[in-house]
Every structure is written in structure tokens, then in C-alpha cells.
């Protein structure tokens, strides 16, 4: 094998990293470098420095330390049985790329993941060394997200949490069964145990000791995870049920859904079809409804699959017309949150405006409401709900049948 240049390695190891959906860099600890002794800041809402033609935000340098891997997970481009080209960065190379990209304002920081080489502990130790060098040698104050290796030792996870803003462990698949079929070396219990340990450490780090000192920081921007959608037979209800459980159990900041997409040199166990992007989108919408709008899993996905033609809130409203129309000037917050076309901000603005007098139909646009969606479901001065009983209500929201075209 000829010696690879830094450019070759970067091409291989970012190509290998693109199946991780997360690129978030928000939250966490407030830091800056106004003292002139380092570089970087973090803690506000993250910044997307570029967008790829796949519509995804590029906020972090998202790379694998190496794509050599001893595991054989069918859905993964880096599995041992794949003939994909392999490469490995040195610690210095990752540090240099991160710092030079950061100084040119290309990125918010580093999202480092890795194939498993030799052993989980060896791999994790190398990743921790990169984060430590960035923090302690380069005085880097930007964002670091480390993908933790589930079976790494607690001491290494401790160190990782000290240098990283966010830790994540992917549950990979929605069911234990699918995981054991497609990722024979991974264990669902091992993954959940690791997430449990991270939650405990985060909570400990926020407690004040008996002597009044605050403890060492530990992953201040929390932990997240990712599930691949469409590689196994799990329905949306199972997926969202798993998410609700993960949010409650491990207080995750986010669950990411990643539509399974064809990978180079793919295993024949998997469907090599177009990635189910609309399904992925609907899952994100439903996830939002669970977390911020007071919906339960069975309300949005009681039928098993989400409606691909309608957003899950509109689909729920059409199936529950008895709950409408909602009186904008009287309804409680929970009822307003269930109106299609109303976001949390709109609802808060309505409640605020009600204190000053009756809200009228023509005010709603200024408050950010999407009236095209909300119209049939609301009543207020200047508007009487119409068409709620119409048999073709669904047809009015669902997109017309459309010929698929390639871009």
C-alpha cells in the first residue's frame, strides 16, 4: 500500500463518517478566548458553517480516527468484511486539521468517531488523547463531540467527559433483535449500560461536594444517540417507543434518526433502495411532538406507521376532529399546542397577546401561525371554522399525487 497523503486520509475518513446524522454543536459550557491565550468559543446555539447538497448542516469536522474495524455490523460501511479503502489518522493529524479548519472559521469543532481497532479500550484511549491534546496543548475552546465506545473502561469514559462537550453512543437499531442480527459483536445491554453510566456521571458532576466545591466537568452538552431507520423491519411506533424510553432513561439531548442509505460495498443482508428520507423527516416531527407538544407515542404512531403524506400533527388532528375547533381566546396551552400550523413560539405569543385583548384572525400571521394548516381547526373573531366535517379534509392537506423526478 502506498503512503497516503493527509488529503487521501481526510477523503476516506470523512466519507466513512457521513452516516452519522448529528452535527449539533449547541449548548454546553460557555467558553471563549477573549483572554487571548487560546482559540475558540462555545455555549450558544451552534452555527452551521456550510450545507452539503444533501441539505445537511456542516458544523463540525466529522471524521473517523480510523475506519479499520474488527466488528462486522452489516449496516456499516467500515465493517471488517467490507473491502472499502482503509486509513488511519495520527493524533497530530486530527489535531492539526481541527485547529486549521477552526481558525479559518470553517467549523465549530470536532466530532470524532472511530472503528474499533485492537480493543475498545485502545481505541477509546487514542480518541481521548486527541481531545486532551486539543484542550491542553492547543488551548482549544471550541466544541468537541466524542463517540464513546460502549465497552471502554469507566476511567476512559471519565476522561472523555472531561475534555468533550458531548458524548454519544449509538443504539444503532430500534430493536434488540435487529441489533443482534445485524451487529453480532454489539450488545444492546452494553450500549444501554454505557448510556446509564454517562447519565450518572453527568448528574454527579453537577452536584456540589460536601465542601462546597463544584466537581470536574463532564460532558456539559449532554449525550445523544442515533438509530438507523429502514435497515430492519421495526415500525415507527417501535422506533418512537424506543426513543421515548431513551429520553426518560438517559435524559438524552437528542435521538437522531438516520434513513438507511446505500453504502459502498454493502452487505447483501440489507435493502439497497433509496433511503426513506420522508419517513426520517416524519420521525423527527413526531419526536418533536413527544418532547415539546405533550403527545404520547400511541397518539402519533398508534397505527404503527406515520402517515408519509401528512405531518403527524395534522394527521392526528384530522383523525380527532372532535377535539376541534379550538377557541383561540379561551383554550388552554395544551390545546393550542395541538393545533396544526402552530409552533411553541406561536402558542406563547398567542397566550401573551390574550392578556392585552381578544386575538383576531388577522393577528395570527404576525404571530407566526401557518394559517393554511390551522384554518379548519380554529375559531376566533374574524374567522369561523369551516370544513371540519368535510370528507375530503385529508385530501386538502395531502400533496397531490406527483410524478417522481430525479434532480
Amino acid at each position, binding site marked *: 500500500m502506498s503512503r497516503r497523503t493527509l488529503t487521501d486520509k*481526510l477523503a476516506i475518513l*470523512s466519507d466513512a463518517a*457521513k452516516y452519522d446524522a448529528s452535527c449539533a454543536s449547541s449548548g454546553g459550557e460557555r467558553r471563549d*478566548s477573549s*483572554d*487571548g*491565550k487560546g*482559540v475558540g468559543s462555545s455555549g450558544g446555539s451552534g452555527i452551521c*458553517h*456550510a*450545507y*452539503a*447538497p*444533501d*441539505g*445537511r*448542516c*456542516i458544523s463540525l*469536522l466529522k471524521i473517523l480516527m480510523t475506519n479499520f*474495524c*474488527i466488528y*462486522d455490523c452489516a449496516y456499516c460501511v467500515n465493517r*471488517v468484511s*467490507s*473491502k472499502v479503502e482503509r486509513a488511519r489518522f495520527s493524533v497530530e493529524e486530527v489535531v492539526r*486539521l481541527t485547529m*486549521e*479548519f477552526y*481558525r479559518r*472559521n*470553517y467549523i465549530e469543532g470536532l466530532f470524532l468517531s472511530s472503528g*474499533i481497532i*485492537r480493543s475498545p479500550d485502545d481505541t477509546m484511549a487514542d480518541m481521548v488523547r486527541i481531545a486532551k491534546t486539543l484542550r491542553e496543548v492547543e*488551548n482549544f475552546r471550541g466544541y468537541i463531540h466524542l463517540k464513546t465506545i460502549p465497552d471502554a473502561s469507566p476511567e476512559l469514559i471519565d476522561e472523555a467527559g472531561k475534555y468533550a462537550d458531548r458524548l454519544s453512543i449509538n443504539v444503532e437499531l430500534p430493536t434488540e433483535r435487529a441489533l443482534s442480527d445485524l451487529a453480532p459483536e454489539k450488545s444492546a445491554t452494553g450500549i444501554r*449500560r454505557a448510556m*446509564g453510566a454517562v447519565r*450518572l456521571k453527568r448528574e454527579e458532576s453537577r452536584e456540589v461536594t460536601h465542601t462546597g466545591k463544584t466537581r470536574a466537568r463532564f460532558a456539559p452538552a449532554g449525550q445523544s444517540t442515533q438509530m438507523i431507520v429502514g435497515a430492519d423491519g421495526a415500525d415507527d411506533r417501535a422506533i418512537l417507543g424506543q426513543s*421515548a*424510553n431513551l*429520553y426518560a*432513561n*438517559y*435524559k438524552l439531548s437528542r435521538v437522531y434518526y438516520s434513513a438507511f*442509505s*446505500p*453504502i*459502498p*460495498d*454493502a*452487505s447483501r443482508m440489507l435493502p*439497497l433502495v*433509496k*433511503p426513506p*428520507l420522508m419517513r426520517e423527516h416524519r420521525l423527527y416531527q413526531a419526536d418533536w411532538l413527544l418532547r415539546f407538544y405533550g403527545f404520547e407515542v400511541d397518539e402519533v404512531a398508534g397505527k404503527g406507521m406515520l402517515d408519509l403524506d401528512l405531518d403527524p400533527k395534522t394527521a392526528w388532528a384530522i383523525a380527532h376532529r372532535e377535539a376541534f375547533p379550538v377557541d383561540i381566546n379561551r383554550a388552554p396551552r395544551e390545546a393550542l399546542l395541538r393545533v396544526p400550523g402552530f409552533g411553541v413560539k406561536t402558542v406563547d405569543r398567542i397566550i*401573551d*397577546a390574550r392578556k*392585552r385583548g381578544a386575538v383576531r384572525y388577522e393577528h395570527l400571521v*404576525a*404571530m407566526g401561525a401557518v394559517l393554511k394548516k390551522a384554518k379548519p381547526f380554529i375559531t376566533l373573531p374574524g374567522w369561523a371554522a369551516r370544513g371540519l366535517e368535510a370528507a375530503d379534509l385529508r385530501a386538502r392537506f395531502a400533496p397531490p399525487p406527483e410524478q417522481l423526478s430525479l*434532480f
Partner: protein
Amino acid sequence: MQIVLPVIGTVAAWRDHVRRLAAEGVAPEAVRWTVGEGARDLLAADLPRNEGRKLSITREALAEIETALCHSDPERFNRAHALVLRLNDGLGWGDRTDPAMRKVLEQAKAVRRDIHKMHAFVRFREVPTDGPRRAFTAWFEPDHRIVEAGTPFFATRFGDMDWVIATPEVTARFDGTLRFEETIDTARPPADATEDLWRTYYASIFNPARVMVKAMQSEMPKKYWKNLPEADLIPDLVRNADARVREMQAREAEEAPARRLAAARAMAVPDKPAPEAGSLDALRADAAGCTRCPLYAPATQTVFGEGPRDAKIVIVGEQPGDEEDLAGRPFVGPAGQVFDEEAEAAGLDRRQVYVTNAVKHFKFSPRGKRRLHQRPDMAEVRACNVWLQSELGLIRPKLIVAMGATALQSLTGKGQDILKRRGGFEEAGDGTPLLVTVHPSYLLRLPDPELAKVERAKFRTDLAKAAEYL
């Protein structure tokens, strides 16, 4: 009257003028605001005047108005001037049904977006320098007049380097101190070698199977592309995406060389020796995969008992709680701490006893980001009894302590009347003496602190009785 605001410090100058105009009672519609050069209108004597006043508006309102003043709309100064006077007269802030207020809020939002895009899309290029710090330069073209409001961000982020951000109108310079000047030199900085690495990254991180050009352009509109080194890659990436996906689908998966596969698989198998058959560790390993009742699915892990193989006393609780579920160890949460404190006070050394639970998975109902404890039902207790009996069968303790109704139910078949039975000795199924007491979480739930104190003392007395078996 025409007022010419300076190019640098526009907003601050506007504020000073408005304060003065209000004191003099000048009506907003009498003022013509411009920025930079402009003929001065000195015929101020005939201005329509109202009663003079001192202005006071909320900090929130002022911040939002000042943000909106960075907008490029020429009407913004008059609009804000009028709005400030109305706010001063008692108009409530934030009412979006007021057209002027709504316009200001919308323009502030547009300015914030422009600033956000500046923070995102400025691309520094390294330039040679004689100084001790590295030096970088960028050229950026904003929609609005945001350089002064948008660049302090770069000063806190890039504190250890010298940098310049030039825009068509204003240039920001930082060398430890941030300064602004009118732009004279509009030359773009020369390309930087690291840009090629960045372009490699941009092309490689793109997934050709998920082309969504509209989504990209709504966040990274074409107007920014000319100053983004990666943007000229976009047309080819999009054009070739489909062919790349088809190629991936068509290519048959080839197996990697057999030798490498074998070596990797050997490494992937953990080389932990299997625990000795019939030992506590073997039992623990078996229980780790237990699916005898549905409680395993939402929980993190089986929480098995812990303590010496030859313990004289086995303490049995109800089930693991939130923290035990995460840590995988029994009695480490709040109830466990109560137990530890009282056991120590009663002379019962936790390291000498074996502690376990009647049910080995945490039963809970999720409430958003919290988990509420739920008592296990009969079927679950029965399903889990096999593990408890196996633990007791291996350890053969001199005494079992049943804490709470669930443990009592599991060990004697009867969980009622716990408060009547507590403190008394009974027998487990195989005749082992069994001491009954309450569960420590009961002590935490008592609302009356006096009663809690009394109950804690009784609990300690019970544990002291157990300690005699050590």
C-alpha cells in the same frame, strides 16, 4: 431637518440624536435621516415641535430596536424614532398586532439572521505577518449594516490571532482590540492552502444518496457562494450523485481477505473466561439475559445481588430504582443511602452482608425525561423468584432480612400487614430464619419529620437484631 449619521457608530449616534430631538420636542416626521455623506439641511427653525420630554424605554425594547437599525431599509430611522416616542408614552412592547412594532421585530429578525450567516460564512485566509500572532483576512458581503454588531463574536472566538474582516462598506480589524474603519481596499485575500483540504472534506462528507438541493439553498443561498471556497464543487457533486448511487447499488459486495477476517474476528471476541458453573458469577451472567417477565425491555440492565459468597446475612429489598438501574448495582440510590446509614449505626457492616432485591429489573413509567417508580406485580415477583431462590440456595445464610412487602411476598408468599409483622422473626420456605422490616424508601416517603425519625429508629433497631447474626 436632515441628520447625517456617521458610517461607523451609526446606531449610537442615532440614539443620541433621538434623545436630543425628544427633549426639544421635534416630531419624527420632520427628520430626514441619512448615513454618511449628504447635504445638511440647516432650516431647523420651522420644524413642527411637540412638548419636549425625557425618554425612557425598557432595555429589551431598546436592544431590539437597535438591532433593527442595522437593517438596510432607509425608513428604519424614522420608524424607530416614532416607535420610541410611542413606547415612552406607554405603548406595550412586543405587540405584533401594531404594524410599526411588527416591522421593527421583523427587521431585527432579518438582521439577526444576517449576523448569523456572517458568523457562519466568513472564511478566513491566512496572510503573512511580521508579528508574533498568526494573521488572517476575510472578505464578506452582508445584506445589512452588521459589521459593528456582528464582529465582537469573532473577537471572543479568535482571541489569539490577528484578523481582518472586510465588507464593501466597513472593515473590522482585531489585534487584541477591535476597531472599525471605512473600507478602502476591496481586494480579496489570496487563496489559502488549507482551502483544498476543506474542499476535500466538503465533497467527502456529502452523501450522494440523499440529494436535497432546496434544503441546502434555503440555508446557504447562492448569493453567499462567491465567497465560499467550497461552493464551486456543488454543481458537479449534484450532477454526479445519481450515478454514484447507482454504482454502489450495482456493485456486488466482495468479501475482504479471509486471513484479515479471521484475525479481526479473533480480536472481536472478548477473551474473558466463562465463570465457573454453579457459582454466583455464573448465576449473575445467566440473570443478565433474563427475559422471564416484560420488565427487562424498558430497563437498562439486570441488577443482581452483591456481597460475599459466604455472607451470614442476606438482605432482600423490593427492586432496583432509577440509579440502581443505571449503575447496575443494588442499593446505591437514595433508599440505599438510608440503608447504609442505618446499617452502620446498627453495627451491620454492608461489606459483610449480601444485598439483593426480590425483583431484579427496575419497573417504572416514563414521564417525559423522568421515570416514576412502579411497584412490581405478583406475576413479576413470581417470575423473578427463581433468581432470589438460587442466590439463597448458593449462599445459605443464617438469616434473611426481608425489607418491605414485595420482599416479604416473594420469600413467604404473603406480603400483607407489614407494619404488624415488622421486627418479628418468621421462616422462609426452607426454614431459614427471616427478619421482617420496612423498606428504607418507606422512611423517605413519610411526610411528617417526627414520624420519620421514630420510624428510622425502629428500622435501626430491626437491623441491630440482624447484626447479632454476624
